[in-house]
């Protein structure tokens, strides 16, 4: 297996302090100790994989969602394209993400002020092309702007279900194919997905609600919150091994395994 690096941020200050997606409710607080345990389980699951390293960044008090490092920005080689968060509640994270990437020798690019872009949460590479989710958090114009920077094709996909507000909550590249939840896309986006990924795994609503698409795929391993027998079989038929890690306390914030990690290489 090729070596892989991820960035994570410990959940020291994680909690539900505001509501910026339908999953979040201040009335339904996250159990902090359980969240720390779940995060450690995920961290352990990743670091136990051969050749995989996890970098950690310092958590910041008052920025509970900084644990969701997938939204820091987009990493391509030594380039870091910094996110422009839609919600003011998360905009404070940018400074710390940029500091970390600058300290670690990355080139930092920023998109024009008037665009919103939430990094690897909404931009994923699959089957030789980039797919960009837009509407709830990222502007389609931002994908055109990132495409200008990368000089690569980005196919914007229109998201239609507020519960699946980032592309990585309803779409997961796996090898040359993908796992996705059809209900999260408009008809045009679905046509594109079905044309591109004839052998994709389409998950059911109840699987999507368990964040089945918010998976970390490393080599033949798929790490995710929970897996239905059906999805497990579909993945094992393709040669993948599922590694469920309970992440209920983060799902209360609308994020799971993928959201808690950012692939660095």
């Amino acid at each position: 297996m090729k070596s892989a690096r991820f960035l994570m941020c410990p959940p020291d200050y994680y909690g539900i302090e505001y509501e910026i997606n339908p999953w979040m409710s201040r009335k339904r607080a996250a159990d902090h100790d359980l969240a720390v345990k779940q995060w450690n389980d995920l961290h352990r699951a990743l670091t136990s994989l051969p050749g995989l390293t996890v970098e950690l960044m310092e958590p910041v008090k008052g920025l509970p969602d900084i644990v969701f490092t997938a939204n820091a920005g987009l990493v391509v080689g030594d380039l870091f394209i910094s996110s422009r968060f839609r919600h003011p509640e998360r905009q404070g994270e940018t400074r710390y993400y940029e500091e970390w990437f600058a300290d670690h020798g990355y080139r930092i690019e920023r998109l024009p002020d008037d665009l919103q872009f939430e990094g690897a949460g909404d931009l994923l590479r699959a089957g030789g092309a980039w797919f960009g989710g837009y509407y709830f958090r990222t502007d389609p114009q931002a994908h055109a702007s990132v495409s200008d920077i990368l000089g690569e094709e980005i196919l914007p996909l229109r998201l239609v279900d507020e519960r699946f507000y980032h592309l990585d909550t309803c779409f997961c590249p796996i090898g040359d194919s993908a796992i996705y939840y059809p209900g999260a896309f408009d008809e045009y986006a679905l046509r594109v997905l079905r044309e591109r990924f004839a052998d994709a795994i389409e998950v059911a609503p109840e699987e999507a609600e368990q964040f089945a698409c918010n998976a970390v795929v490393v080599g033949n391993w798929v790490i995710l919150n929970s897996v239905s027998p059906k999805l497990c079989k579909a993945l094992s038929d393709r040669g993948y091994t599922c590694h469920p890690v309970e992440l209920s306390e983060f799902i209360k914030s609308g994020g799971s395994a993928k959201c808690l990690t950012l692939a660095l290489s």
Partner: protein
Amino acid sequence: MPSEVVELKGHIVDSLGLPRVLDAILAQGGTFEIEEIEIGKTRSEQSCARITIEAPTAEKLETLIAYIEKEGVRRLDQEDARLEPAPKDGVFPDEFYCTTNLPTNVRISGAWLPVERIEMDCGIAVEDGRAYAAPMNRARRGQMIVVGHTGVRVDAPEREDSHDVFEFMTSTASSEKPKAPIISEVVRRIIETKQQGKKVLLVAGPAIVHAGASASVERMIRQGWIDLLFAGNALPLHDIEAALYGTALGISLEDGKPTPHGHEHHLRALNTVRRIGSIAEAVRQGVLTKGIMHACVTSGVPFVLAGSIRDDGPLPEVITDVLQAQDAMRAHIPDVGLALMVATALHSVAVGNLLPTSVEVVCVDINQVTVTKLLDRGTHQAVGVVTDAALFMHELSAALPEHEEVAV
């Protein structure tokens, strides 16, 4: 129709971004034209389409574009209207924007302002965050006037699928059309206007008096169906002549025969009113006891009398400065919902020029040319009825309910 050019850039072909946007435009009631499209030659190269979008109204266009902006469309001509100061009193800057009588909006500091008191053939003045149509002769030196077409948006008239009798009358006015359904439609519209709290304006020529329809008009005024009268010198003069002498231009209104020295009647009537000082005073003194002008004065219906070069006298209330007369009429326009223009070519066109398209216009004349002329001068919303004015007013008056307050 208001339109705007937008740009859609990105991998819009393979992602179906372009069909998504075009379908959305149609679904939202707009239409589009692709002005230019550059398709990326390689996978990585982006495509770019420039699309002109049209919608029935500026408001709908705004909603539509706001909707497709979320699909990646960028606005291109998002520029404020350009303003230049008027170089001297009564003169607009070169390149001033010429208004139409359609609802118009101008973009100032990023916000769209409706042009108030819209009227055709004016400029647009912008002052204190408001925009309004300004007649050229009223421009003041230094007043900021919109120049060019940038940042100006005009609403096209809404074409509703109406199935009333007015539908087939929107073509050329013709005498060969049944009058009964027209009369009942006009009645309906008068009642509707009153129900909306708007005013009914009568613009009338002297033929109403000559042909003997004074009593009908008088009744409509007294019953509250007419709120405002615009005329020249002749209508009030012959109405007063009729009240004082029983003649119009010397012809007896009873038997239609010329009366001895009848040609002097209107001059003597003029002299009487001029001696008294005003029509209102003539009513107050009991000299004028009936007729259209008496009804106006006693019912509190305001009138604006605009003179012309061929006038005798004129009557004291007649405004002989045409610019002042226009302003006097303008002051009443904002409340008007329906204008009945009956048997007058000059005043119909003059008033038509001042009306926004939101005011319904019914033009009645025995001469098709008058109706056509009004339409040709830009009052496209006018509905023409080619018929005898007196008979029309008789029938209209008879078809209206007894009293405005009862019906409304």
